[in-house]
């Protein structure tokens, strides 16, 4: 794009010629036409490029996100399945309704946790607004600013990504801190962990429930990797 700007700058002195010179007027008109034609070509190329670039990385991004989503969320699914099994066992053995409602509460809590984590997994990537921004900048003929903006956005993306990665690690693997204090670095989490029960808490509650029910503790063995 800078190349294009330079080219048009070189041509511009032509416009300063005598306004009564008919020949000069005509050449200025031709130049303007030529310039707008070039600009159109650049924009056409840009759109073609966007499509081609997207086509290449869309599947790659999908695969990456898919793997990540599946691997994080499966833990919550396992916990939910285990609690469901306990629930039906309770129904079968006519356990007290207090225990049953406790299991139901825990199931709700897992659901909340899962939803919350999923929301954050998805917010790793901000809305695709960069192209709109660039397009409007281009329309305003401020192309020199565009690359700088782009860089800032990319830097931001990376930062959010890192934070979220940290958050995932902490929430799904590190069970030592109940309140997940490292969450604070994340964007929208200021009030989040007061609303959302942590996975550690749910696990602890489930373990005590298993003891109360008198079923083998082995039942939670497959949740160890949580």
């Amino acid at each position, binding site marked *: *794009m800078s*190349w*294009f700007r330079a080219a048009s700058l070189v041509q511009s002195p032509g416009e300063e010629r005598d306004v009564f010179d008919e020949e000069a007027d005509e050449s200025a008109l031709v130049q303007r036409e030529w310039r707008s034609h*070039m600009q159109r*070509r*650049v924009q*056409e*190329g*840009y*759109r*073609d*490029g*966007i499509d*081609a*670039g*997207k*086509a290449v*990385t*869309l*599947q*790659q*991004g*999908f*695969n*990456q*996100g*898919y*793997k*990540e*989503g*599946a*691997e994080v*969320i*499966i*833990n*919550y*699914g*396992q*916990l*939910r*399945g*285990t609690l*469901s*099994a306990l629930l*039906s066992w309770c129904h079968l053995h006519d356990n007290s309704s207090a225990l049953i409602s406790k299991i139901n509460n825990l199931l709700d809590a897992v*659901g909340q946790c899962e939803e919350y984590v*999923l929301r954050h*997994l*998805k917010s*790793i*990537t901000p809305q695709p607004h*960069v*192209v709109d921004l660039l397009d409007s900048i281009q329309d305003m003929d401020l192309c020199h600013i565009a690359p700088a903006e782009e860089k800032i956005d990319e830097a931001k993306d990376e930062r959010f990504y890192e934070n979220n990665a940290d958050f995932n690690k902490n929430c799904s693997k590190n069970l030592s801190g109940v309140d997940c204090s490292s969450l604070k670095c994340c964007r929208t989490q200021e009030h989040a962990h007061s609303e959302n029960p942590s996975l550690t808490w749910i696990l602890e509650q489930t373990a005590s429930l298993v003891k109360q029910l008198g*079923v*083998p503790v*082995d*039942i939670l*063995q*497959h*949740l160890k990797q949580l």
Partner: protein
Amino acid sequence: MFDAIVMVDERFHGEGYQEGYEEGSSLGMIEGKQYGTFHGAKIGSEIGCYQGLAFARRCLLHGSATEKDSKKMKVLESFIGMIQKFPYADPTYDKLHEDLDRIRGKFKQLCSLLNVQPDFKISAEGSRLSY
């Protein structure tokens, strides 16, 4: 002369193309990841739930030796075998839908055998993947 004009035309197009390509690549990555995360999480949630349920059930059934229970155990074991073999985190697995349908079918069979209602917030129907 004509050649030169065409070349310039190409050159401008190429210049825009390159810029667009870079932009499009990062956009595609972002968009793809968003869709991917959503679908991956859906599968992970469903398969995880099956795993949790099946392992817990097996544990609860263990030690019981009645004939009825041994049939349950058999179906349960085969169900566990299916979900353990299922590469849930691999979106490139070409038999994903086929296997998932088989797992869901087996799960229904297991539910009726164990006499449980599969109502734990899995929308098995309608959660067919499309990408």
